[in-house]
């Protein structure tokens, strides 16, 4: 299955991209997606447990994906 990973700010700089189509095994969790990202070039610069949102809602590492989701890896926010 495929998920769309969105990266922002310093995380986009680390991976050199702001959106990545990722093919992952069926039944993958957010944790699995983060593991795949960590193994990509520049992925070692992501923190071990970044904040993640699935379809624009904050999620946990254990959240199971069905495919087709938008998985956003969220750096420490700095609005205001």
């Amino acid at each position, binding site marked *: 299955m495929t998920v769309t990973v969105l990266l922002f*700010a310093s995380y986009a700089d*680390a991976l050199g991209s702001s959106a990545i189509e990722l093919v992952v095994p069926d039944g993958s969790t957010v944790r699995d997606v983060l593991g795949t990202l960590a193994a990509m070039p520049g992925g070692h610069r992501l923190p071990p*447990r970044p904040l993640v949102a699935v379809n624009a*809602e904050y999620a946990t590492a254990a959240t199971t994906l069905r495919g087709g989701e938008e998985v956003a890896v*969220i750096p*420490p*926010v*700095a*609005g*205001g």
Partner: protein
Amino acid sequence: MRVALVDRPIDVAALISEVSNESCGAATVFLGCVRNVNDGRGVTGIEYSAYRRMAEREMTAIAAEAQAKFGVSRLVVEHRLGTLGLGDVSVAIAVAHPRRAPALDANRYVIEELKQRVPIWKLEHYADGSREWVGQGTRSIEHGGAEVEPLPAAAATEHSRP
């Protein structure tokens, strides 16, 4: 109640007019502005970016929470994105209510929650020509309250946009 991300200067007077009416004895305004120094470094400007879809959703949720907690319905929040200069208004919150306490409390609540939850980032431009992402949100994926390690400053600077 209205929230918005905007790509133009924020018209503060218009926001006050939007929330005020004759039943309201109080109107409060909070403005976040671009400051000329951060952690002792001279700042020349800030570039704001967002995960727009989620930022609008979180801002809407925060406004609804303020409404529920403080009974305020006349509330507007605008956050500006793009490159801002010194003194520019980056965020404005206006609340009107018959009494001052709910208007003050709701305003404080909205800015504090916004800074913790809304996926907006700032790339600070410094007087020495360098740029760096600034982070202050502290929630991790596992549970609220845990610290998230920011990327090392040097690494973030090295890969900042030109």
